[in-house]
Each structure stands twice: as structure tokens, then as C-alpha cells.
């Protein structure tokens, strides 16, 4: 069970969250705060796992609340944060303080669902690690685990594990997840540098593939190689990269 608190000064905004969260069986709402001070008291009293937090609230903003809470409590007891806000300008700050997600109002139930799923994963992993007395990894990971960007009027904190493959389009890279495609202004070499080589493999000058979603490597009748993903997506592969992938497949 995930114990959650809703903090928003608008009653209709809290009502929406409450109603949508009824469809999330693992969430138990333990309190609702309509102001900053109320929220701080509630969090201290109930020690929830998850906090749905509006940013602009009377008195203090959402980041002040987090500052107050983290100053007075041990970091392991801090709840995970999902921001719900009408403003997109705080996204980077939210990303930097490791918020789970950033929902721009109005959001859909699907969008909320994916945020809750991610919070669930994070809380579950943290609880498992807590048993081994190792909440935060001592060294920050050497590679990117998630990317923040704006796409079609939404803010996404995309875990790189959701990326199936990346295709180059001149100065841009098209990032393909299961359901969507996003165009980012990034070079392939920069992305390759940022992504964990254990997870992502450059198979062509213009393609990077997530090995988790790799189904097979085919040799076409023409003698050229193709990478096939689990969803059937075919990606051309350079000869020079062929050795790398067969090596990887032999190893796994």
C-alpha cells in the first residue's frame, strides 16, 4: 500500500485527484492539505510515502514545503513527490530535486496512472534497498537514468528504460517509446555518451537501440543486417556494428 497526501489549495483540484486515485488500488489517501502549513503538519504527522503537490499555494510554494520538510526530517522518511501544477516553468527544479513526475493541469487519468506506476516502482525499490541499509546508491549513476523534456505541450520525465530506439534526423533525434515518438534537439553522439552502453547500443550511424527490446538480428537476402525489435520495428544496421551486437548476444 502506498500512503499518499494530496496538497492543493483548490478544492476541485483535490476532488479530481481523489476521484482518479480511486482507480489506483495501491494508493491509500491519508490526508489532504489546502495550505502549505497544513500540508507540512500532515506530512510530519502521517509520514506518507507519496505527496501530490501543487506548486503555487498561498503562503509558501511547493518547493518551500519540500525545503521545510527535508530540513526537519531524515531523508529516508521524505515522501516521493508528484507535482501537479498549471505552470510549466518549475519543471527543471522539480527534475533536479528528483521528483517522480510533473503533471501539467489539466491531466488525464492515463497520465496520472503512469506517474503513480513510477512512484510505485521507486517506493518499492527504496523499501527493498532500505532492508540492505542502502537507500541511495553511494555513487551517483554514471549514466542518465531519465531525461526531462517538453513535448507537445507536456513535460516528460522519461525513464530511459522506456526508450525503445532512437533515430537520427539531422540536428534532431527521434526518441521512440512504446506509444509515442518525441523529437529532441540532440546529436546521436551526445545521446550515446549519456546512455548506459550496457543498455543501449549504437547499431548504425543514425540509430541507437535499447537492448531490452531487441528481438533478433536478421540477415536480409541482400546481405544487409537488420535489427528487429519486440514490437516488430525493423532498423537497418551497419556492418561495422554487427560484430558488436553478435558479441553482446553471445554474452547474454
Amino acid at each position, binding site marked *: 500500500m502506498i500512503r499518499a497526501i494530496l496538497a492543493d489549495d483548490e478544492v476541485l483540484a483535490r476532488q479530481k485527484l481523489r476521484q482518479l486515485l480511486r482507480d489506483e488500488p495501491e494508493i491509500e489517501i491519508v490526508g489532504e492539505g489546502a495550505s502549505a502549513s497544513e500540508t507540512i503538519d500532515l506530512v510530519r504527522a502521517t509520514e506518507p510515502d507519496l505527496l501530490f503537490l501543487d506548486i503555487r499555494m498561498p503562503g509558501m510554494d511547493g518547493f518551500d514545503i519540500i525545503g521545510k520538510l527535508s530540513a526537519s526530517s531524515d531523508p529516508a522518511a521524505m515522501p516521493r513527490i508528484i507535482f501537479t501544477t498549471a505552470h*510549466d516553468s518549475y*519543471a*527543471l527544479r522539480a*527534475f*533536479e530535486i*528528483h521528483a517522480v513526475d510533473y503533471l*501539467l*493541469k*489539466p*491531466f*488525464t*487519468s*492515463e*497520465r496520472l496512472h503512469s506517474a503513480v506506476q513510477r512512484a510505485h516502482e521507486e517506493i518499492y525499490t527504496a523499501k527493498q534497498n532500505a532492508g540492505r541499509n542502502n537507500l541511495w546508491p553511494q555513487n*551517483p*549513476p554514471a549514466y*542518465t*537514468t*531519465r*531525461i*526531462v*523534456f*517538453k*513535448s*507537445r*505541450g*507536456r*513535460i516528460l520525465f522519461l525513464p530511459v528504460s522506456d526508450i525503445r530506439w532512437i533515430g*537520427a*534526423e*539531422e*540536428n*534532431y533525434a527521434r526518441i521512440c517509446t512504446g506509444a509515442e515518438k518525441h*523529437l*529532441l*534537439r*540532440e546529436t546521436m553522439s551526445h545521446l550515446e555518451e*549519456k546512455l548506459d552502453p550496457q543498455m543501449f547500443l549504437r547499431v548504425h550511424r543514425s540509430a541507437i537501440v535499447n537492448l531490452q527490446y531487441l528481438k533478433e538480428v536478421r540477415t536480409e537476402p541482400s546481405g544487409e543486417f537488420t535489427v528487429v525489435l519486440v514490437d516488430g520495428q525493423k532498423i537497418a544496421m551497419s556492418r561495422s556494428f554487427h560484430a558488436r551486437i553478435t558479441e553482446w548476444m553471445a554474452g547474454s
Partner: protein
Amino acid sequence: MHPAIFVSASVLLGTLFALQEWITVHLWSYHIGLRILFAAWWVQYFLWGVLCWLLWRWCGPWIQRANVLCIFTQVLPLSIVTSVVEEMIWVACFPQLPLNRPHMTYWHRLAFHLDAEFIDNLVVFWCAVALFRGIGYYQKFREKEAAAAQLSVQLAQAQIAALRMQLNPHFLFNTMNSISSLMRTDIAAADTMLEQLGSLLRITLERGEVQFIRLNDEMEFVEMYLAMQERRFTGRVHQQLWVHPELHDALVPAMILQPLIENAYTHGLSRLDSNGLLHIEATREDSRLTLSVLNNGAGLNSSPPKVSDGQGVGLANIKSRLQLHYGDQHTFSIREVATDQVEVTITFPLQFSASPAETLTRFGA
């Protein structure tokens, strides 16, 4: 104007006069020192250069504005005074002149030189006055020209803003009506559409009154719009979108595609029950950008263009914006490329955004 300009111009003039006199003197076989001859002319015109500069600094605007009465009552006395003062300074500088004469007092020499040069001095003064007034007229002319140019730019911007205003509300209220309708039948769909509308409004507001945007941003808007249309025409229309990878950073007028797509739906695709095709493409031909929207809804003949309906407004709007932005450099065409397939094509000069794209993208743990 810098004093050096006055001084160097008038000293150059003095040099020419000195050369002229030197040649005359040679022709008449007089004997006169080269040094004294040039010194006299140079000092004369150096003095004039300084005086003209002082005149420009202190009285320039006044001279430019002066009317006829003012010229007679004030500039004329000033010209006489200036001419005499210039001569007085010059005479004081050259006590040995005139050459080969018995000793003369200062006042005698002044009278002698004024007799010879007073009219010349007046001519120099009035030339300077004429020049100042000429400069004044030229400046005024340039200012008027600049103001006229600015005015036409402002007018064009106001027109473009007005045209964009025609686009947004039209689309906004139609969508709100769709949501209102969906609310009664399908709450989840209404919710999704509301989120999509929120996203669309957010990027439209962020964009503000910018007239040109990257094709990448325009296409993002188009994708969002298409997603909303897909909800209305579930499965009836197959949407295809293709942008040449080199063109993501090309500059296009903001909201140039949406009216064309809306048009394809209202006048073509909405008449089909299935197998609709909407193909949107951005291609490049040397230094020109081509945007095309093709639909297989109905031929051109089946929808007689009426100025009163949406088509008239939307397309006329696009045409006038292209005309305002590109003049004769653009093309706009509507063709029936195959039976029941209508393609709208616009082309204009390819330009790329000079400023680097601002992105929110960050990588993190």
C-alpha cells in the same frame, strides 16, 4: 560632425587656391616665397574651417530653421562680423604681408586686406550657410523616409496579428463544443480532449506573437491538432506526416498548416465514412520550402468555393499572410492531383533560424 571634417575640408580648399596662385605667379614671373604663399592660404582656410565648425556647433540648427526675415536681420550681420573677425586674426598672423610695401600699421594692413578679400569671405560664409541648410533638408528627408518604412512594417504586423486572431478562436470554440458534446457520452474521451486542448493552448500562449517559428514547432502543433481530429474521426482517416530531416529548423509562418488541415477535414475528409487519407509533407527544393496537404475526401468540383464559409476565410487568410511575409516570393496552389484527391501546396524561400533552439532537455539520474 567632427571638427576634423571641417578643418581638413577647408584646408584642402586652401591648398587648391594656393596652387592656383602659385601657377599665376609663375606665369606672370613674379617672385614670391613658396612658403609664405602656402602658409597664408593654409592659415586663411584653417581659420575658416574652425569658424565653420563653431558656426555648425552653436548655430547649425538655428541656421537650418531660419526664415527669410531671420536671415536678413541676423544671419547677414553675422556673416559680416565673421568675415571681419576672420580677417583680423589672419592679418595679426602675417605682419609681413603685404610684401614689398613700406611699413604699415595693423589697421592699415587690415583695411588693405579687407578691401581685397571681404567679398571672398562673405562668399565662403554664405556657402557654409547654404551647405548647412542642405544638410538639414537631407536629414529631414531621411527621417520622413524611415518613419514611412516603420509605419508600413507596423501596419503589416497589425494585419498579421488580426489574421492570426481569426484562426485561434475559430478553432478554440469548435473544440470546446466537441468536448461539451463528448462530456455527455464519453467522459474519458472528453478528459483526454481537454488535456490536448490544454497542451495546445499552452504552446500557443508560450509562442506569443512570434510570426515565424521552426517547422519542428509547427509540426508539433500539427501533431497535437491531428491527435484531436483523430478522436473526432476515429479510424476513418489515415494520417501521414513527413518532414525532410534537414527542415526541422527551417522557419515558417506560425500556424500556417493548421488552417489547411482543418480545410482538408471540413471540405473533404468529413464526407468519407472510411479509407480517408490525409498526407502532410514538408520538402525542400534547393532554396525553397514546399509544404503540401493532400486529402482524398472529395474533388474540387464537388465543393464549390463559397466565400461565406470557413474555407473562404481560412484560405484567404493564409494567402494574405504569405503575401505580407514573402510578397512575390511565394506560391499557393490548389490542384486535383487524382480523382477526388485535392492537394494544397505552398512554397516560399527557405530560411533557417539563426538563434539556437532553447530546449528544456536535461539528462539526470
